[in-house]
């Protein structure tokens, strides 16, 4: 007879050990604790979870609807801002109105890109107006200063200078000083820069 057959024939003798007497008491305690005593708490807990989940679901649906409306408008504005035609871009900047109460990072980024790179002065000027809707956004403020450093068109320069003065942006003083001291600067730009400088120093 082989080993397995022999062992299986005497299987009962292999199962002769018995659990200690105290183990039954311990098991009853454990069973009560794990599967019986917590029943009420579990039900209350599950109900609480169910109510909380329903509330979250309702709010999610509302927020999702709001988000989807905003995102459609954002996409529309972005389409205009990225159009090849200056007229369309201008239209896009003006579409960026009161409906956009929350800062939309994608639109702000596009506006800042226009501020630095657009070839059309009117579009740039309208863009500065649009950016002024976010006076506490530091990214907007620092980009206005950088734009002023690089800007060569007098009308745009004046618009940015006035905006920085309106924003009481003291970090613009060095740039204003350079514009004032630059011999190539148009006199009208110089006088606006000097006025802004005086206002900032007050």
């Amino acid at each position: 007879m082989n080993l397995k057959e022999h062992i299986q024939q005497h299987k009962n003798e292999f199962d002769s050990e018995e659990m200690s007497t105290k183990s039954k008491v311990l098991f009853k305690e454990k069973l009560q604790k794990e599967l019986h005593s917590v029943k009420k708490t579990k039900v209350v807990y599950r109900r609480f979870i169910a109510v909380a989940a329903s509330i979250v679901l309702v709010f999610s649906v509302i927020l999702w609807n709001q988000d989807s409306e905003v995102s459609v408008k954002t996409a529309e504005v972005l389409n205009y801002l990225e159009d090849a035609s200056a007229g369309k871009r201008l239209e896009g900047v003006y579409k960026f109105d009161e409906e956009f109460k929350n800062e939309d990072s994608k639109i702000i980024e596009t506006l800042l890109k226009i501020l630095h790179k657009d070839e059309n002065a009117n579009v740039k000027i309208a863009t500065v107006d649009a950016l002024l809707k976010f006076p506490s956004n530091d990214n907007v403020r620092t980009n206005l200063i950088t734009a002023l450093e690089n800007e060569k068109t007098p009308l745009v320069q004046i618009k940015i200078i006035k905006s920085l003065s309106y924003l009481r942006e003291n970090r613009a003083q060095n740039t204003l000083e350079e514009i004032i001291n630059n011999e190539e600067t148009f006199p009208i730009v110089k006088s606006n820069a000097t006025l802004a400088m005086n206002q900032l120093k007050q």
Partner: protein
Amino acid sequence: MNQKEVIQKCKQNDYSAQIEVYNSYKNLLYNSCFRILQRREDAEDMVQDAFIKGFQKVGQVKDDVNLAAWFRRIAINLCFDKLRKDKNIFLLDDSIEIEVGFIDTDFDKAEEFSVDIIKECINKLKEKYRVILVLYLIEDYNHREISEILKINESTVRNQYARGKGQLIELLQKHTNNEFKRTHTAT
């Protein structure tokens, strides 16, 4: 109460039915756990955990399931989870050794040995061989089932079983020789 009724009651989280199941199978599970873990306290803990886990999951089984085998399987799995956690055994898969190959030794004189001697010799084996022999010879699992429980290749199981069995036979034969010497020295 027949087994089907007991299962249905357990599915309803009936305390009396759960205690009835515990009383019926606790020693069966305990022996299986003790053979694997070799420590009375650990084996008792595993039995209790197995019943609790089983009662939590009993809703997933059919009413005609073999309850004893089902609980025993849970208990054995818990034992190996513990062994893996405590000792990190079975992490090394030496199935590559199968190429060298261990031939499953034929042994047809098992009836010459008492259960106690076989138990004693199995317990002397290295743990990695002992647990596989226990599962195969005593718990009556096949190699594939053992590989699933131990989470190692089936070929590794076969290899380790052959090695373990070889060592067990050596121990049994050594025991016979010692008995023979002892008897002859006494006379």
